């Protein structure tokens, strides 16, 4: 019982939840606005992590400074992918289902290419960045600086995105697009521009997550895939295209992962995690907050 109430577990649950929420957020933006299933999402995070690693290793640049660069770099790749591959797909796909299927295949291809290019360029040997790993003790909970930063930045991004979507014209346009594409275009939303912005933002968030993860994870060309899976679980559970739902689901899974293990055993991690996932979908096939708002 004492263990269950310990702040240490709470902190871990929040950190892991924030990672899930952050990786889910970018994926959700791209799916919500364009119905593109970005299976290469985790690989963008991998590129962000490598950027942070090389800058740190060669130039002693802090991963926190590398993070904005990773956002810019990944956003640039987003623009490239949008103009090079997906604009035509979005315009020409006869149905949304067809677009989803095509995008899944295209992104899978990109994912394989990116992973293998990274393996060729950087070799598959794992790398690590040791940064901000001093331990802070706050109220009986000890935490390393990098995990604290991870939590702080993710929370900031989630809140920032929520405000952006409610207050800024661009944010409202993105939301409008998520809710109803054709109606959005009828009321004067520049669909192409909003799509480009969402793609860049979605990719950028993946790059950011990667730069942050470089401080806590081993870096390798194949590190991205587990994050892609986690992100998909998060956004499906939250309700595809529902950004707030995704964030909620991310934190929920973080808590389930930590407390589920405490109450049972570490070995049950996947069973509990996917059990909750399946359970939620059985009760609410549209996801936690998904459904009406978007379908309408």
């Amino acid at each position, binding site marked *: 019982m*004492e*263990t269950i109430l*310990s702040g*240490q*577990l709470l902190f*871990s649950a929040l*950190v*892991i939840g924030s990672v899930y929420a952050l990786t889910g957020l970018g994926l959700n933006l791209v799916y919500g606005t364009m119905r593109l299933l970005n299976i290469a999402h985790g690989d963008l995070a991998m590129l962000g992590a490598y950027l942070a690693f090389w800058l740190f290793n060669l130039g002693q640049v802090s991963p926190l400074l590398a993070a904005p660069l990773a956002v810019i770099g990944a956003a640039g790749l987003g623009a490239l992918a949008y103009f090079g591959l997906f604009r035509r797909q979005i315009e020409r796909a006869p149905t949304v289902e067809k677009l989803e299927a095509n995008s899944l295949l295209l992104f899978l291809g990109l994912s394989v290419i990116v*992973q*293998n290019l990274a*393996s060729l360029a950087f*070799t*598959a*040997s*794992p*790398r*690590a960045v*040791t940064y901000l*790993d001093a*331990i802070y003790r706050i109220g009986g909970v*000890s*935490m*390393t600086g990098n*995990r604290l930063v991870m939590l702080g930045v993710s929370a900031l991004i989630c809140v920032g995105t929520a405000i952006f979507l409610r207050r800024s014209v661009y944010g409202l346009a993105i939301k409008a697009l998520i809710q109803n594409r054709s109606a959005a275009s009828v009321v004067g939303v520049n669909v192409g521009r909003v799509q480009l912005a969402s793609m860049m933002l979605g990719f950028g968030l993946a790059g950011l997550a990667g730069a942050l993860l470089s401080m*806590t994870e*081993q870096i*390798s*060309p*194949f590190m991205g895939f*587990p994050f892609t899976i986690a992100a998909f679980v998060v956004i499906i559970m939250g309700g595809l295209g529902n950004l707030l739902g995704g964030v909620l689901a991310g934190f929920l899974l973080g808590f389930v*992962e*930590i407390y589920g*293990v*405490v109450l049972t*055993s*570490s*070995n049950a*991690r*996947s069973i509990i995690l996917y059990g909750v996932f399946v359970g939620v979908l059985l009760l609410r096939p549209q996801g936690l907050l998904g459904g009406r708002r978007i379908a309408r």
Partner: protein
Amino acid sequence: MMKTLVAAAAALALSAGFAAAESKPVRIGFSIAKTGLFSKAAPSQMTAYELWRDQVNAKGGLDVAGTKRKIVFVWYDDESKPAKSAQIYEKLITNDRVDLLLAPWGTPHHLSVAGVVEKHKFPMVGNTAASVALRKIKPGYIWFPTSSFPDRNAAELAKLAKAQGIKSVAVIANVLPFSQENRQFLLPALKSAGIAVKVDEKYPPNIKDMTPILTKIKSAKVDGVLALSYPDDSFLYMKQAREIGVKAKMEFLLVGPTIPVFAKAFGKRADGILTIGHWSPYQTSWPRAKAFFEAYVAKYKSEPDYLDSALAYMSLEILEQAVAKAGLDKAKLRQAIATGTFETINGKVRFKGVENVATPTAFLQIQGGKMHIVWPKSIATAAYQSR
């Protein structure tokens, strides 16, 4: 005139042919996990292969029973799939007709390829594999230089812990096969050594947070933590155990600490970490050890993996010495490997069945950023230090 020209051309072609035959390189085949699950681990093996090839070629080539011939590699990506590596070795033998074979990476691949080399009676010295299952392979065409067999590890680890006055431990184990095999032998070994196991937990390979396990360990106040881990969770353990403040006199991590990035990532904090491994460059009675270490560092600007790179290089030394004696004839080569004693970076190696019986099962400890053998005393390069 025409006739002479043709004759001259023919003579020229013939002599060119002879010249080519003389310097015909030795083709050595293998498969490697360039992509997939094991791709992170495989480079430490490939780097040893490439270092050896370059060293041998720089000396004029591989000594094939007296004739020096350059080495060329023929390799394919097995995508970390054991079944695929079996297909590749089949192709290397029957289609590419390579002269020699090197091992793929990892136990499952060795097990998968063992049948192929046996079928074609093609001797191959294995390297990066360790499992009691290896002993079930029919001996004859494959050999394993490792001394880190799980049953031997377990027995020796219990002895080491007892010798250090460890009374209670936490045993946490990844559910992957090598960890589980070690756990299966370790628990009874600890029991008979009179060491109490206060925490006994298993965890999945994709574990992302160890806080729950580590909080248990912390409150159990054990003398030692024996983590039967793989590289990813070894990293996670190092980061989180420190964060949570797990303090134990002995901390053992099964796989991970020998990878160069480990010592780099944790620096001083890795001091005192114990792991499996039987090779260290600081063992002066193995003159080849230091030379290999220095050549490796010079070429790759990074230390070798003390397990995999060392094992890979040992397998090459064994093959090189056997080929120098027996040439490329498969039956003679097989005989040479099975019966010979070889000088390696890890001292003398000799096989009985599939197993290297000359190298003792040993443990490495990181001390001042260096990997020292601390157990057993017969080959130790430094005394064990408590964490």
